[in-house]
């Protein structure tokens, strides 16, 4: 059950992050829109963007799987192990989102991924 929840969380997180990054790059949010008074308008605007709605759907799946995981595993296991998506997402950021992943960034992502593996041991 524990590892099934981890798999569900990782897959749904990867899909949600790719969709969010793709869509939010197309139309960024201005600093001024982060004012609390404009939050409702910002949320309404985001809710009309289909890729973001699909991303939130995947995040909801990830959220409920995470709740289940927390009920059967330690916090110090549950949170780090879900970061297994970091390495996978960095590769997909290069291939799908065409980001310029420099050697230093690859090294950093690799360190994080190895660290996450150690945390999950």
């Amino acid at each position, binding site marked *: 059950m524990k590892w099934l929840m981890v798999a569900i969380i990782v897959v749904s997180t990867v899909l949600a992050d790719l969709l969010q990054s793709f869509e939010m*790059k197309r139309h*960024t949010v201005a600093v001024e829109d982060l004012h609390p008074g404009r939050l409702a308008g910002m949320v309404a605007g985001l809710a009309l963007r289909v890729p973001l709605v699909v991303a939130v759907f995947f995040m909801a799946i990830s959220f409920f799987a995470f709740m289940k995981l927390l009920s059967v595993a330690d916090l110090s296991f549950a949170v780090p192990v879900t970061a297994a998506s970091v390495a996978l997402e*960095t590769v997909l950021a290069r291939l799908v989102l065409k980001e310029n992943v420099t050697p*230093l960034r690859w090294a950093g992502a690799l360190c994080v991924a190895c*660290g996450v593996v150690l945390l999950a041991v």
Partner: protein
Amino acid sequence: MAEEAHLSSSGTRRVDLKTKLLTAFVVCTNVLGNFSMSWGMKHQAADLGLSPLAYIRLIFTPWVLLGTTLLILWLLSRMTLLGWADLSYVLPVTSIGYVASAVLGRVFFGEIVTWQRWLGTALIVVGIICVGLTAANTTKQEPAR
């Protein structure tokens, strides 16, 4: 030309500062949200099973509700951050949250943090420093609406 360069330079600095501040906000809401959720889940008596209704009822208990609220703020702020910075930048830099969660688990829940976990923590910190030295955004984007 000189004026353009000056404007461009100050604009870059402003982007850097707002990205850093938003990154800190994203990390804080994530860590505190996960902690509240975990606290709420560990202090609920019944076994949840796989019933969706049990999870929906649980969302409205105080600690889980607080955690959910913080995670909604995390979601919105992270979406905004993903518009300002690369996914391959945001992921490792916000990974400091995993370290904070391990520390909170040790301090508040008495969870056993082995030497492997501390080594993992150190590796994550090194990775964050490496990624933090790179440019936040390497892709072209449309101006803010």
